């Protein structure tokens, strides 16, 4: 039986001094190695939830444990948690336009104390894995939308995280590219046994996941298992 990698209890997050309630008592559990889609219309709080899980933001109240870390009560900068435990993929690739694909991959490694050549080797290996070995020295503006998103996938994996968080990763892609990127994410999830949490408003995209958690108005409406369930979860 796999352990829970995310445990959330009654998470509340408000914006604009409490006037907007983005999360209104969310409780959920996600297990290590799962591929979960968090689905819901815009404004449902799904990105807010992802930001809390990824330690980009803190909840107002409730309990949140991610990869063994208490994110509600921990003090100080959570950057090193982000560097070591999670990898982010955003809707817009969010690569640094002045740096090459390879250099973009190396950015997160600058936080780790490891020899440069090791990081360099890992980055090349990952670029090869996402099929961009020949474009390592291209800058993002010289890459297609799908290629950029593949660089972003590789960057999310560079520090060997336990958790990949993808926020509408195919939101700006055409349907053919969308499928390619989702297939890549699925493959990587299977190969590496990494937990994948994907946020989307698109039910079709959510179908790629093992389990869908649906949010509406900051509350969990339903957590169903989809047909593509690869493992047995408790």
């Amino acid at each position: 039986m796999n352990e829970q990698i995310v445990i959330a209890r009654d998470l509340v997050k408000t914006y604009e001094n409490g006037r907007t309630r983005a999360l209104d008592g969310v409780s959920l559990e996600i297990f290590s190695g799962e591929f979960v889609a968090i689905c819901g219309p815009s404004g449902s709080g799904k990105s807010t939830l992802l930001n809390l899980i990824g330690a980009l933001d803190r909840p107002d109240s409730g309990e949140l444990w991610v990869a063994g870390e208490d994110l509600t009560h921990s003090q100080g900068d959570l950057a090193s948690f982000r560097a070591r435990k999670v990898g982010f993929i955003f809707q817009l690739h969010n690569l640094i336009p002045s740096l090459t694909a390879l250099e973009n991959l190396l950015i997160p490694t600058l936080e780790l104390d490891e020899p440069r050549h090791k990081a360099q080797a890992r980055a090349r290996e990952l670029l090869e894995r996402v099929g961009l070995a020949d474009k390592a020295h291209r800058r993002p503006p010289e890459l297609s939308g799908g290629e950029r998103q593949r660089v972003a996938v590789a960057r999310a994996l560079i520090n060997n995280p336990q958790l990949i968080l993808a926020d509408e990763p195919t939101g700006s892609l055409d349907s053919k590219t969308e499928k390619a990127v989702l297939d890549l994410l699925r493959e990587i999830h299977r190969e590496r046994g990494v937990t994948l949490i994907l946020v989307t408003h698109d039910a079709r995209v959510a179908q790629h996941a093992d389990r869908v958690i649906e949010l509406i108005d900051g509350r969990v409406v339903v957590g169903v298992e989809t047909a593509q369930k690869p493992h047995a979860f408790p």
Partner: protein
Amino acid sequence: MSFAQLILKNLWRQRVRSLLAILGISLGIATIIALGAIADGMEQNLIATLRSGKADFSIGQAHVPMIVLSSVPEARLYEIARWPEIKQAVGALVAFASFPGNPYFLTIGIEPEAFELGGVTLLEGRAFSPYAEDEVLLGRIAAHTLGIKLGDVVEIDLKQFRVVGIYETGNLLEDGGALLPLRTLQKLKNRPSELTVILVRVNEGISIEEVMARVEREYGGSLITLRSSEEFNRNYQSLSLVRAGSWLISLLALVIGGIGVMNTMIMSVFERTREIGILRAVGWRRRRVLQLILGESLALGGIAAIVGTLLGWGAARAVTLLPQVRGLIGPLYTPELFTKALFIALLVGVVGGLYPAYRASRISPQEALRYE
């Protein structure tokens, strides 16, 4: 790619802006280098003016701001010259005089017997006779730049003198001036029985320090002894005004350059808000972001130090080529000057980068990522 390479890449990205910031600091650094080298050169000349030749040490008036303003009664010379440990003691009067085409013409009143002790070498002609009222020796540089030859008549303080010899001491100021008989200069300047310095050579086997100590003991409070340029610096803050001016310019360079760097870096951070958000999202700590921005502004300062040093060197060189000052100014480049310039340039980088770096480190990742 290392952290340092990332810093340089970020500067290269906005090369025009980086270049302008570098230019801003460089001008300040160039001023510091040029003025500093010229001031150091002038100071060295003033030091050497009264501490050259074969003298073991020299004696001047205590508590005067500039050695040229030193006034020692001639009677002291005769008292000290009688001491048994003294081999030779001679006096010299140093004064600026008016000379056509040179407002800072250095004249030294000295007796021919003191030439050796004063380090004077005759290149042409002969020495003047001690009481000649119309004979002068011209320095090598003065003769060369003014085109004056042996036998010509020159006007010093509106009085006519015949050039009977050309001399060299190796000192820029001295070689750009003239030597007159001591009595003649005392009379010309209306400073009878007055000296600027006494040059002293002690007998063989006698400790120079002990003789210097005796001078200080017997005339303590009114006379001081000088042996080296460091002592000179300690005792005569001769160029304090030039020094103060140089520091003021350094301060201005610091402030102006700092504001320029700050402006550049604030703009750069503002434009990169989203990127900094990405860095934070992928795990960069606040401190790392701070180091990145501070590193960029420090690199601006470092590059400006090199560019500014080259510009300053060129400017000082250009100044020395001006006919008005030729022979008067010889820039002196000391390691201290370069260290000071580098330090100021880096300080400008730190001062200008601190606030933008702090701002950048406070950027919240999830808000920056929403920022378009």
